């Protein structure tokens, strides 16, 4: 595929976003951007994606009125049940979309990064189902804490490549995937798992995840006849948050983005005790975009921390950085303890075990019920089976 990249101007969100990548990646990224631009309005492509979302991923997902949690909070709470998507998280919405783009671009191999393993699993699923060779980069530290997901990926035919560089977590897995792609772009698509990174990923991933918000909007209007007062979503890189927020940006709905407060605001020379890039970060460039990042005064990236591997990332998508700056999205935080509380509460009150990532949104709602208004939607981005060992360990400490 030929495309003219004499000037590779990238979409920006205010000052955030951009295309800060080595020259070798400029051409593959612009080819991807142009292919996506072409396909997003192509009926054939949209039909194929819609069919897979319905019959393979199991959409639409319910918008469930959580009566017991509502009583507890004194606010009417609806849960958007992304935990019921095939694979156990919202991640498949994006991997299906990107895999179909890759297929139409003639790519035969997928590479991905993963932290919690959920995006790796979602990539392995589409790799198996749509016939790609699939390799997933995963930090050694994360391999250790998400063994089940490693095995799930392998069962589905993906190869998990341990990443031993840097902090050996999600950010290093992304670095490694970018290095791979710089040599393999001819036949390989880099399937980035969140709404971060260089153009066009933040827009493309947001679009593929917007199915969450589009459904939720229709569902709430149908049952309540009005929009909610607030929407709560957890934020790692920002894909489930942007996915549910995007269709509500023009509405009078409070958008609450809950980051990992981890152990608190502390940091050392090389590490931060949290994953709260919107809350504690400063402007900088990470993985191809100008955004909010956790860094030292010289620009070295700090190792983030969260009990939830999927929120353990020292950056955030550029669109969220922009929306937080304009005040349209309110950045919030839930620390480890609050998240564990949310994890237990939703399990006990509703019989729904949320992912530790999603438990941050639940925990935040429990700790700040007044911020929600009278009616709120909480995005349950994934289910918690993968986290049982982590929570057991946490409780034993």
């Amino acid at each position, binding site marked *: 595929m030929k495309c003219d990249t*004499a000037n590779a101007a990238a979409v920006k969100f205010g000052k955030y976003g951009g295309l800060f990548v080595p020259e070798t990646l400029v051409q593959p990224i612009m080819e991807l951007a142009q292919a996506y631009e072409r396909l997003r309005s192509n009926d054939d492509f949209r039909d194929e994606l819609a069919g897979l979302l319905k019959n393979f991923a199991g959409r639409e997902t319910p918008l469930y009125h959580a009566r017991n949690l509502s009583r507890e909070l004194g606010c009417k709470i609806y849960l958007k049940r992304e935990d019921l998507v095939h694979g156990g998280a919202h991640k498949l919405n994006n991997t299906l979309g990107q895999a179909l783009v890759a297929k139409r671009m003639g790519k035969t191999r997928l590479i991905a990064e993963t932290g919690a393993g959920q995006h790796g699993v979602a990539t392995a699923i589409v790799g198996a189902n749509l016939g790609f060779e699939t390799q997933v980069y995963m930090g050694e530290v994360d391999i250790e804490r998400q063994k089940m997901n490693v095995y799930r990926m392998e069962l589905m035919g993906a190869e998990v490549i341990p990443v031993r560089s840097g902090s050996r977590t999600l950010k290093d897995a992304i670095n490694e995937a970018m290095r791979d792609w710089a040599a393999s772009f001819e036949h390989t698509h880099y399937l980035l798992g969140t709404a971060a990174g260089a153009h066009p990923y933040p827009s493309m991933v947001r679009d593929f995840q917007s199915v969450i918000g589009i459904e939720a909007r229709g569902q709430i209007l149908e049952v309540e006849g009005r929009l909610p007062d607030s929407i709560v979503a957890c934020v790692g890189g920002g894909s489930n948050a942007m996915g549910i927020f995007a269709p509500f940006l023009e509405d009078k709905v409070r958008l609450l983005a809950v980051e990992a407060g981890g152990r608190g605001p502390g940091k050392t020379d090389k590490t931060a005790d949290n994953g709260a890039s919107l809350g504690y970060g400063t402007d900088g460039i990470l993985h191809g975009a100008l955004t909010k990042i956790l860094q030292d005064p010289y620009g070295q990236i700090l190792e983030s921390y969260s009990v939830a591997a999927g929120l353990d990332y020292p950056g955030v998508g550029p669109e969220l950085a922009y929306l937080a700056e304009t005040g349209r999205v309110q950045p919030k935080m839930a620390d480890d303890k609050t998240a564990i509380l949310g994890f237990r509460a939703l399990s006990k009150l509703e019989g729904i075990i949320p992912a530790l990532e999603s438990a941050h949104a639940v925990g935040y709602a429990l700790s700040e019920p007044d911020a929600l208004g009278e009616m709120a939607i909480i995005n349950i981005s994934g289910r918690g089976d993968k986290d049982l060992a982590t929570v057991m360990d946490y409780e034993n400490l």
Partner: protein
Amino acid sequence: MKISEAFLNKPLLIVYICAGDPTPEATPDLVRRLVAAGADIVELGLPHSDPIADGPTIQAAAQRAIAAGMNTDVYFDVAAQADVDVPKIFMGYYNMVYARGPDKFAEDCAKSGICGMIVPDLPPEEAGPLHDACKRHGVDLIFLAAPNTPDSRLSMIEKETSGFLYLVARTGVTGAKSDVLQSTGDLIARVSSDVPRAVGFGISTPEQAAEVIRAGADAAIVGSVCVDLIARGEVERLEELVREMKDAIVKAKGKAPIVC
């Protein structure tokens, strides 16, 4: 010396090392020894925690240097102490520049005798602020082109770059390789302006260095192989290699290519 003056005596050997590896104190002397052995330009890498354009060799060097106390302040001290008669060039990632502020960064380069900047994750489209800062402080901002850069984009980059054009010899990341690819020769030939052409990424032997000069490059850039020798403490072997490389490219000057 300005970069343009250095290119009056082509072909050039450009040597990359990671500043602060193994220690910040060791760097100025290493630079002097490289220049004494024949390096015409020295690229001083500023280590970054997340070097996405670099392979394992330079990643490891960056980690050692950071552990040894290298940071941007120390970097400029070390660069100033490395008092040599050849151009010194900054090589590093844009977040390190952004964190200091492009203007202050370019100013500190000028003050410490650094006359050019290579920022591998900063394509011309995003380089506005640094471009202006470099102009203000008389520092060359050197852009890169890759084998997969299309012609229309290549001519844009040729116009934007100053000092020289950094031609990436192969797709992928930095790291020693044993061959020279057909696509490298093609890339050198596709450059249509008279901007000096320096080829790097993967060059590790005198034969490869000679090969890219024969293919029409004005300079050969070597990095990972030097960083590797420093990591093993084999500085004398490094000096010898630099001498051999310099020798090989001088002999290759004006010769027809063998492979490319």
